[in-house]
């Protein structure tokens, strides 16, 4: 289907089912139960999952295929966000022109930075991209405030000169982002017994774009172009000796992955019209690197898993506090309850960084191929249990 072989089609379908049914899958616990704390099926987080999924998939096209480790990819995300918000401020609240502009601008930005940075390889390349991104961040935070609104972040105001559309709605508020009239924030809530599932228009837009982005990335991985990029990774020198100029290929990969980042930035701004400078900081660039490695660099699905993993911890674990813990363990005798809460306390709430750090180490120590390898091991184990041949000829191998 869609020019993919069976295995890839299956994977695309799995991703499609997972993203489209996310409101159900991510809300497994009844709303009033103590475990509802672990529910992630609310619009904002679901949007973040898929948006960072797009970002990581794009990053993987560069890093997973060519091995070039960019440490400044967040700059493209930031540029995308700024372009989208400016589009909302100046043109219209429709998300389509905003997203298009953010992809184009970040593509151009990536072309310039990529052209310069790709003159070097290895860690020298990483530092060049880092330097460009940090420059963009520092300038956006201070000197470029007229364009970026500095620390506060670029926001919509009541007196934006919107060409197509109104500056303020009839009741005096700022209009909301929409897709040809369909408001991005509109949410339909389905209540089934004790469960409540939220279907959000913005999420579904992001999800469909993720599917398209994912499909495109499969096609790139399987195309001759993707093969060329993998050749660059395994031995660029040999490629050069055969008289082949690899620069156009790596530059194309860099620009494509920059456009993915810009797309993610544009979507972020479309879901929530604010663009902050922190989106370009090196920690944000580092985050996408971690997402990709954590999920499994060079694999197709890995980066999406990694993105979901990190965002889940950031948003769910940081919100667990001692009160919540006490309510979970209230069935225990008082002394033991306090003891258990005392033990868990450092790892939740303000300690969510600690948990994340430990998990990074555990994953990389025990699962060298990232989360994807974990999945493969479970699948292998399940197969063995079934008594089938353990040689697993159908095993999906990472692109590496």
């Amino acid at each position, binding site marked *: 289907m*869609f*020019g993919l072989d069976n295995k890839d089609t299956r994977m695309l379908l799995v991703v499609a089912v997972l993203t489209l049914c996310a409101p159900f899958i991510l809300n497994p616990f009844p709303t009033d139960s103590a475990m509802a704390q672990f*529910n992630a099926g*609310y*619009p*904002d*987080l679901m949007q973040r999952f898929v948006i960072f999924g797009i970002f990581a998939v794009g990053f993987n096209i560069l890093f997973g295929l060519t091995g070039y480790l960019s440490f400044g990819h967040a700059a493209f995300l930031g540029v995308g966000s700024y372009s989208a918000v400016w589009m909302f401020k100046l043109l219209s609240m429709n998300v389509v022109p905003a997203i298009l502009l953010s992809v184009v601008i970040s593509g151009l930005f990536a072309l310039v930075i990529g052209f310069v940075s790709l003159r070097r390889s290895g860690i020298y390349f990483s530092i060049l991209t880092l330097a460009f991104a940090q420059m963009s961040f*520092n300038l956006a*935070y*201070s*000197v470029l*405030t007229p364009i970026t609104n*500095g*620390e*506060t*972040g670029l*926001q*919509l*105001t*009541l*007196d934006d000169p919107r060409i197509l559309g109104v500056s*303020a709605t009839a*009741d*005096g*508020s*700022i209009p909301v982002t929409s897709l040809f009239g*369909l*408001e991005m*924030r*509109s*949410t*339909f809530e389905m209540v089934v017994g004790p469960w409540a599932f939220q*279907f*959000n*228009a913005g999420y*579904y837009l992001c999800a*469909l774009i993720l*599917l*398209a982005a994912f*499909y*495109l990335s499969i*096609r*790139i991985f399987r*195309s*001759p*172009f993707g093969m060329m990029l993998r050749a660059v990774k395994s031995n660029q020198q040999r490629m050069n000796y055969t008289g082949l100029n690899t620069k156009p290929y790596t530059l194309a990969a860099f620009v494509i992955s920059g456009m993915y980042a810009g797309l993610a930035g544009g979507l972020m701004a479309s879901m*929530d019209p*604010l663009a*902050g400078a*922190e*989106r370009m900081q090196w920690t944000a660039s580092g985050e996408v690197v971690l997402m990709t490695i954590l999920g499994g660099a060079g694999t197709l699905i890995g980066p999406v898993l990694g993105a979901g993993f990190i965002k889940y911890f*950031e*948003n769910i674990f*940081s*919100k667990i*506090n001692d009160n919540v813990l006490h309510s979970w363990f209230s069935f225990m005798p008082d002394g033991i309850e306090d003891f258990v809460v005392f033990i868990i306390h450092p790892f939740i*709430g*303000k300690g*969510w*960084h600690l948990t994340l750090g430990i998990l990074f180490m555990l994953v990389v120590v025990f699962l060298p191929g990232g989360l994807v390898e974990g999945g493969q091991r479970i699948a292998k184990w399940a197969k063995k249990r079934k008594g089938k041949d353990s040689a697993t000829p159908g095993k999906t191998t990472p692109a590496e």
Partner: protein
Amino acid sequence: MSKSDLSRRGVLKSGALAGTGLALPTIFTASSAAAFTNEPTGSSVTLGFNVPQTGPYADEGADELRAYQLAVEHLNGGGDGGMMNTFSSKALQGNGILGKEVKFVTGDTQTKSDAARASAKSMIEKDGAVMITGGSSSGVAIAVQGLCQEAGVIFMAGLTHSNDTTGKDKKANGFRHFFNGYMSGAALAPVLKNLYGTDRNAYHLTADYTWGWTQEESIAAATEALGWNTVNKVRTPLAATDFSSYIAPVLNSGADVLVLNHYGGNMVNSLTNAVQFGLREKVVNGKDFEIVVPLYSRLMAKGAGANVKGIHGSTNWHWSLQDEGSAAFVRSFGTKYGFPPSQAAHTVYCQTLLYADAVSRAGSFNPCAVAEALEGFEFDGLGNGKTLYRAEDHQCFKDVLVVRGKENPTSEFDLLEVVEVTPAAQVTYPADHPMFAGGALGSCNSGA
């Protein structure tokens, strides 16, 4: 190349897919039958406490969280009632808010606009919070205030000192109890005049972002009105940790006062560096060199240790105040946690009580009704004397404290001493003051 051809076809196909996907959502309606966002229907009401729990302001956030928990305890009738007993409005009964038990959720702003908005959104979308409060920096406060306006919930700002929060970025759903840069300038100026005279040359070092700029503007304007001369205004990068290269030029600039428009970690480092360079022992133009830190935070000042001694600044509130409200608050906070509260803890405690009181007086959780009850509200007994929540910009007008680093602290909390309580009238400005111009409240949004 075959690749581009294929991907274009792919794009077209996914475009078609997207089109069919879009036909579906006609069943999605904006919101259900509720009269406003997250209308509490059960026996409890949820408030969202959004404070920095990681990053440089984590300790300040932790102190805010303690104050929030104390406020919730008092609202639900627990503890000794704290400032509820001294508060001039008696609408609160200690039975929750409008008889509903107060519950809360917490989140981590990470002192980043993005993360703060994500956290606030999860409180609104997932936990059904009807009010969001917190924050320990202006960028975050303004970003979250904008979000609350869009979502139709009330935002009670925590520690935010920028003029913009109730100036060009003010919002109808947002309220600020904390003071601002202009007030710091207005409160400090007369004290500085008495101490250092009218013939001074000031050198500003300013954190290079919006809060720093508004404070620099405010302080420079206030001191220039005294007759001071501003020698230079130098912007320092936010990420700077070592300020020595910015301090060094001060030595030979001819300035005799250094104003540090820095907060938090920046303030600790720039002050430490300034003292290292011997600025405090210096004599310029026949006058002793002086350092001024317009916005003091006791929690952070601890990191500068003995360097704060004798240095003047302003603060919103300090635990050593002797009025009835402050004493009650310090007593109940100190008894529960074993140390005195910070100004951040005080302001968020007040904000929680003020919100609960406004709901009780309005008889509804509807943000528009609450906003109406807060606008123009005059109260007393919350530690800052008679206070007005001005209707035009949702800023509190109250006394401002001028403080000085104490020479002989008796304990690790005893770092600052109150030099003067500048009365509210002296720090009040017209709502259309040029430093606050450029924004509009808009109309209140209840999310209906």
